[in-house]
């Protein structure tokens, strides 16, 4: 039975920059490579970049990835690449990649997927019911004038179409992460878009590899026992025409593909496992069969599938004031009590200046801060005081960053770790999840270049 191989070498924007070229070197027969650049807040960062510069608004790192793959392509690799690095500006991303390829003397056809951007639609219809916040139920009107981005999570159809049209590189915006894999599979095997069982199992495959090394030993509970995590191999899916999967990784690399790593990743960021929603299908995880079938080989079969909802999920972001976070190290007897008192002093000073912040958080790292109130703190000789504030007014947050330094001379003995200087003030981009009906999202593809 014919099988295709799909790798992932970029689990998020900021992952190892040389991972794609290394994966191809370690696994030269790889057919397809998926790269995931977009998280909920990445879009707002891209929006700010585009505000400053109209040719920006995409993940520039991807251009370097394309350049790094050029030698393998020149040597005859047939690898095709599918990514969502286009962000808010797939055209500009494609142009930059085209230039990089031309400089490297490689001819490749580049496909672009457009249409996920629904910002204008949301701005013009702030009273619409489906644009209410999916979690809080609040109407979009409350934040409509502060919206920065709004993108529908679109499915794999456009990816498949671009590959059908001969694209070697597909650059999209907000295609849902697992749909990159689904689009590749439908292109390769010609499945119908109503063949929900196959689409569902392929979606599970995409879900497993979309976070890169998280499928191969990264963040595993038993991470300390995972071999050579510094040389971790990125995940590779072998998919056959029935959508049966084997998850594996290149030979000779570190990390581990085992029942433990794959099952943990199956449960990563999911809600109701019988109703996992993707733009391509609804997936039921409860019928999955997962089995170890060889060294670093785990098979995944049997996902249940049914028709997807008639809406796309929208990931929108809006401006929500400013925040800053500063840390100081406190060492010595009664470190925790000293840290508590220091934190109180800072917030009290802001209050007395009439600049109380809308939100603030004081934490003591080392004292089980991440489990505060649940796991009690051991006696500490050292803690990191971390104070964070947020407020709609930039000047209030700025004042906080200046107050912090006064502790160097007026605070407890043993206070150190301030060499990095004042903490920066950052704009906050809050997340607004909502829905949009499918017929209002017009997705298109185009393919150019190469020859």
């Amino acid at each position: 039975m014919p099988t295709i191989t799909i790798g992932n070498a970029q689990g998020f924007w900021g992952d190892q920059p040389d991972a794609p070229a290394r994966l191809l070197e370690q696994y030269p027969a790889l057919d397809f490579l998926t790269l995931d650049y977009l998280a909920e807040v990445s879009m707002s960062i891209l929006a700010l970049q585009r505000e400053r510069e109209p040719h920006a608004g995409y993940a520039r790192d991807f251009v370097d990835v394309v350049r790094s793959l050029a030698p393998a392509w020149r040597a005859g690799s047939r690898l095709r690449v599918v990514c969502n690095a286009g962000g808010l500006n797939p055209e500009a991303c494609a142009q930059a990649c085209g230039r990089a390829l031309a400089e490297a003397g490689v001819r490749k056809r580049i496909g672009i997927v457009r249409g996920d951007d629904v910002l204008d639609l949301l701005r013009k219809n702030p009273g619409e019911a489906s644009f209410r916040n999916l979690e809080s139920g609040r109407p979009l009107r409350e934040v409509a004038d502060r919206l920065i981005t709004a993108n529908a999570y679109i499915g794999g159809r456009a990816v498949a179409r671009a590959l059908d049209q001969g694209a070697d590189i597909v650059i999209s915006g907000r295609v849902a992460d697992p749909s990159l894999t689904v689009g590749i599979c439908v292109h390769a095997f010609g499945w119908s878009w109503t063949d929900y069982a196959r689409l569902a199992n392929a979606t599970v495959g995409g879900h497993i590899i979309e976070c890169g090394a998280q499928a191969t030993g990264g963040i595993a509970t038993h991470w300390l026992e995972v071999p050579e995590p510094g040389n971790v191999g990125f995940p590779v899916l072998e998919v056959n025409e029935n959508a049966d999967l084997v998850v594996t990784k290149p030979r000779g690399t570190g990390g581990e593909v085992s029942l433990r790593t794959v099952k943990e990743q199956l449960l990563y960021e999911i809600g109701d496992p019988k109703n996992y929603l993707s733009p391509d299908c609804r997936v039921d995880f409860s019928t999955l069969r997962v089995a170890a079938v060889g060294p670093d080989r785990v098979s995944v079969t049997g996902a249940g599938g049914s028709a997807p909802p008639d809406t796309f999920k929208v990931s929108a972001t809006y401006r929500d004031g400013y925040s800053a976070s500063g840390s100081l190290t406190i060492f010595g007897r009664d470190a925790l009590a000293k840290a508590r008192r220091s934190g109180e002093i800072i917030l009290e000073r802001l209050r007395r200046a009439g600049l109380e912040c809308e939100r603030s958080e004081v934490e003591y790292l080392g004292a089980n801060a991440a489990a505060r109130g649940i796991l009690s703190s051991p006696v500490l000789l050292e803690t990191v005081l971390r104070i964070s504030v947020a407020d709609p007014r930039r000047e209030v947050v700025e004042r906080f960053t200046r107050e912090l330094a006064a502790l160097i001379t007026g605070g407890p003995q043993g206070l150190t770790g301030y060499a990095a200087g004042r903490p920066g003030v950052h704009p906050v981009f809050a997340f607004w999840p909502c829905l949009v009906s499918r017929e209002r999202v017009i997705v298109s593809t185009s393919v150019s270049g190469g020859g």
Partner: protein
Amino acid sequence: MLYRPDRSVEAASAEITGTLPTSIAIRLGDIAHARSGDKGGGANIGVLAFNEEGFEFLLSTLSADRVAAYFEPMQPGEVRRYELPNLLALNFVLPTVLAGGGSRSLRIDAQGKCLGQILLEMPLEIDPQRFARCARR
């Protein structure tokens, strides 16, 4: 595995007098592994038993209410539990545990990466013989 510094006084005295204790104190991480991450303003925690006996124990012991009570200081919201016997796993959804979610939360763990590790520290009582079977990987 039975001899733990955090065992109860009863267990210790039973050991001295030669009788087996009826239950011992363990942590969830002795019989399960986990993974957590954010979902909007909330988070999920997948808990995976090492084996079938461990899964049966978790099914009867690790209720949504118990997880909600454990995370109460972090205001987790209405905790929902989903069962995945095919993976020997439970999935817990904690809808408001991140205090604003990945983009707004001021907490050090704004994205819920630590929640799995926190839950694995949950203390549990278990029959020692049953524990020996549940702890097998």
